[in-house]
């Protein structure tokens, strides 16, 4: 059932999705040409964030054009839970696509930039936090308001370095401990936190959507 709801997303936004998937796919190539010595982490992070958020917003905006269609879906055995879960499986699919494209292109262009497990998990955590925060907001307020909240948040975060430099003297977190954590443990922690954020976000979305008037 989940598969068919994901297929529905691809059907309603097929042109947008195709263009974005191609753009994401060529991103590692562009980075390899412009910054050959850059590690694979940032291009991969960029691919995933752009892929997840832009694709999700494209699909959601097209869905918002037919607001009653969700009601029709909920009159079928798909029920509300399946609709929410499909959105989260969509995230996993896009992440996997980005990873596969990044790996394939890196293997062809510059094998030294292949991602290690730590980078993959770090990108997974960052993207899960962004997607996991965005999805419940979209389920609650709809795509237009969620987009506005998202852009405002980005603007606020972009002021972060300036605020952080002012706050830094008062921050007492000892980052020097991080390199001492064995990479294996670090990876397990990253994976577990990602799973936890993903699960909590999905549960919040399920709760919000279960009460939504359709």
């Amino acid at each position, binding site marked *: 059932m989940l598969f068919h709801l994901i297929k529905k997303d691809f059907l309603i936004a097929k042109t947008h999705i195709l263009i974005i998937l191609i753009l994401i796919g060529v991103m590692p190539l562009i980075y390899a040409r412009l910054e050959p010595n850059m590690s694979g982490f940032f291009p991969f992070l960029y691919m995933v964030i752009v892929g997840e958020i832009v694709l999700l917003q494209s699909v959601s905006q*097209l869905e918002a054009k037919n607001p009653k269609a969700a009601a029709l879906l909920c009159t079928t055995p798909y029920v509300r839970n399946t609709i929410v879960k499909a959105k989260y499986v969509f995230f996993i699919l896009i992440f996997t696509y980005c990873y596969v494209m990044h790996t394939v292109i890196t293997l062809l262009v510059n094998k030294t930039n292949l991602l290690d497990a730590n980078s993959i998990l770090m990108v997974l955590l960052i993207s899960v936090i962004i997607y996991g925060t965005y999805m419940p907001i979209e389920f609650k307020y709809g795509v237009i308001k969620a987009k506005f909240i998202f852009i405002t948040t980005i603007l606020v975060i972009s002021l972060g370095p300036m605020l952080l430099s002012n706050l830094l003297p008062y921050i007492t977190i000892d980052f020097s401990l991080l390199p001492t954590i064995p990479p294996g443990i670090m990876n397990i922690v990253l994976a577990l936190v990602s799973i936890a954020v993903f699960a909590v976000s999905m549960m919040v979305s399920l709760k919000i959507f279960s009460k939504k008037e359709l």
Partner: protein
Amino acid sequence: MGNILEVSGLHKAYKDFSLTDVSFTLPEDCITGFIGINGAGKTTTIRAILGLVQKTSGMIKIFGKNMEDNEQEIKNRIGVVLDESCFYEDLTMKEMKSVIAPAYSEWSDKDYKEYMDRFSLNPRQKISTLSKGMRMKFALTLALSHSADLLIMDEPTSGLDPLIRSQLLEIMTDYMKQGGKGVFFSTHITSDLEKVADMLILINDGKILFEQEKDDLLDNYRLIKGDNRILNDENKKLFLSLRTTDFGFTGVTNKVAEAQKSIPDIIIEKTTIEDIMLAHIEGGNK
């Protein structure tokens, strides 16, 4: 004959409107018309039954099972036609079907094709290019292609021309011939129900005013006409609704024998469902 749908004590409160203690049952093998004027609460009731809006309280049982605990199983056995276009407009009918069909365990491509042919619908046509009538036919095709045991339709005939409405009623009659099925059909066009309905439920201002067999209802109510001079305070009480003009009065009553006895020189005529519906609504507003 069991009940296909049971609604009891359904409450749903909005700021400016509420459903109050809505209770009714739908027997098997019956087409039940759910009537009421616009804004009476028909759509809200249907949406609450389908779980599209959260009820404040009340119990909904379909096929004898609680809706909340058996949602997926129940929805697999019901076909739904909603009042407005609920499709993804940019998809073709074939694409829309490819999304909806896998949800049902009993989906029949054979039935789907037969209905598409019967309605002369081209599966490759985009939904955005369909007329209102064609959309309704497509919605009905989807609702009838998975061996549904209960068909729930919200204002399916609204805004349709008489030919399409008559085709819809014919489909409903054919559907009922299979046996063991039920149709719950909301409308404010009561003339459609005169042809096909077995049971009628009237809702007004969020409250159920009556639930009765159509034939009993039409047998029990009469339209009475006469001269204004024969009306008095006592016999006025016999009427559910009463209209007076310079030429005389017209009233609807279910106390025909009493009216015949106490009011001389009256003309008694058969009523329509619309007359009865309006009489109850106007009577309640008096």
